[in-house]
């Protein structure tokens, strides 16, 4: 998700090619070609420029609607309805051909990952590991971060593990259903004992009203994430 603007010039994009199984966009205004996953112009008058990232989430509709009841949803076009992906499109995609692989990683090319990029580092987490652990505390570069699975069991968000204004990093725990002061609570921190919702905002306790800093995350296939983030490291699930 990118801001479609460079130096005040609005850009309108078309899908215009493919590079290493990630698509290329062409802007109408300058004819430059852009890599979808990096937002970098790879050819044309704007080569070398980068689009600005727009923070986005991949959520279930139910979770999003609960958070944004006044939001708007892209409307289906009746003429295109039969062309939209089937509900099990992600299962079918697992069988799609692959031409890029990193077998030394021990990960399947189409292993679904949650990728984080920031603080001078890239780090990838197996989505399956997150489904199992539900809350992962880790570091992105030297920055303490946490990834948390939403109550819907599908949505994921990542945050810095520092309570704004408190300074030092803290640990977070998942709260058990029915054992929290707020029905929206998903996490509790060890520094203040406050409860936090899936949006990363304090909903009960000393940190009520405070929100953690978001870390942009993207769901991507391993081969694609690794290819365009060659310095990435991979989180290995803790063995109990």
């Amino acid at each position: 998700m990118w801001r479609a603007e460079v130096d005040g010039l609005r850009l309108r994009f078309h899908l215009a090619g493919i590079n290493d199984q990630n698509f290329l966009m062409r802007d109408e205004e300058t004819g430059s070609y852009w890599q979808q996953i990096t937002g970098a112009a790879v050819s044309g008058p704007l080569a070398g420029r980068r689009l600005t990232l727009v923070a986005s989430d991949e959520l279930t509709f139910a979770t999003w609607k609960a958070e944004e009841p006044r939001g708007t949803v892209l409307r289906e076009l009746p003429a295109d309805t039969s062309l939209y992906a089937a509900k099990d499109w992600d299962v079918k995609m697992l069988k799609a051909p692959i031409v890029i692989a990193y077998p030394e990683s021990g990960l399947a090319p189409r292993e679904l990952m949650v990728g984080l990029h920031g603080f001078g580092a890239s780090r990838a987490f197996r989505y399956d590991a997150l489904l199992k652990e539900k809350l992962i505390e880790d570091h992105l570069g030297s920055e303490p971060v946490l990834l948390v699975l939403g109550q819907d069991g599908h949505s994921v968000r990542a945050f810095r593990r520092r309570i704004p204004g408190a300074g030092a990093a803290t640990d977070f725990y998942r709260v058990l259903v029915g054992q929290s002061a707020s029905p929206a609570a998903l996490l509790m921190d060890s520094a203040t004992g406050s409860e936090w919702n899936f949006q990363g905002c304090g909903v009960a306790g000393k940190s009520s009203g405070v929100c953690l800093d978001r870390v942009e995350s993207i769901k991507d296939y391993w081969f694609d994430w690794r290819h365009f983030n060659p310095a990435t490291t991979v989180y290995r699930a803790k063995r109990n």
Partner: protein
Amino acid sequence: MKITTPGRRFLLYVVLCLLASFALLVYPVYVIRPFRAQGVRELGVALAVTRYRAPFMVALAAASLAALFWYWRREGRWLRRTASAAAALAVAAMGLASRVNIYELMFHPLGPPAFVAAGQSKLDGDEMVIAIHVGPAARAYPIRNISYYHIVNDLVDGVPIVATY
């Protein structure tokens, strides 16, 4: 069939034009095709060819048609005239074909996007959406829809964005 001197000259010209047009048309398609790993250098060359080939294609088509005109003034037999016209027109046709980006033909971009209120959407609760928040505006793009268009050019609270999947 004996090939005359004008015929040889025309053949030489038109074959060169055909080869050059074919190379300019096909090389980017060959490099930028799905399920193939693209090298950085070949991708750069293929995109440069795509961007700069138009005037060359026009020049090649013009050269072919000029050669055809020259040949027709020296050749009266209609079978040869027809064959030569077909060759020259093939060069022009490749020039026209080079104006078409196969990807832009295959993947229809969504026009100005339309939206419905969250409460009026018929989406199932477990459908995955890409969600953004710009200023006071919140938008959701259902993945099953956006994965067909791949690109949605949108304006959210006055901010131009491109939603991709």
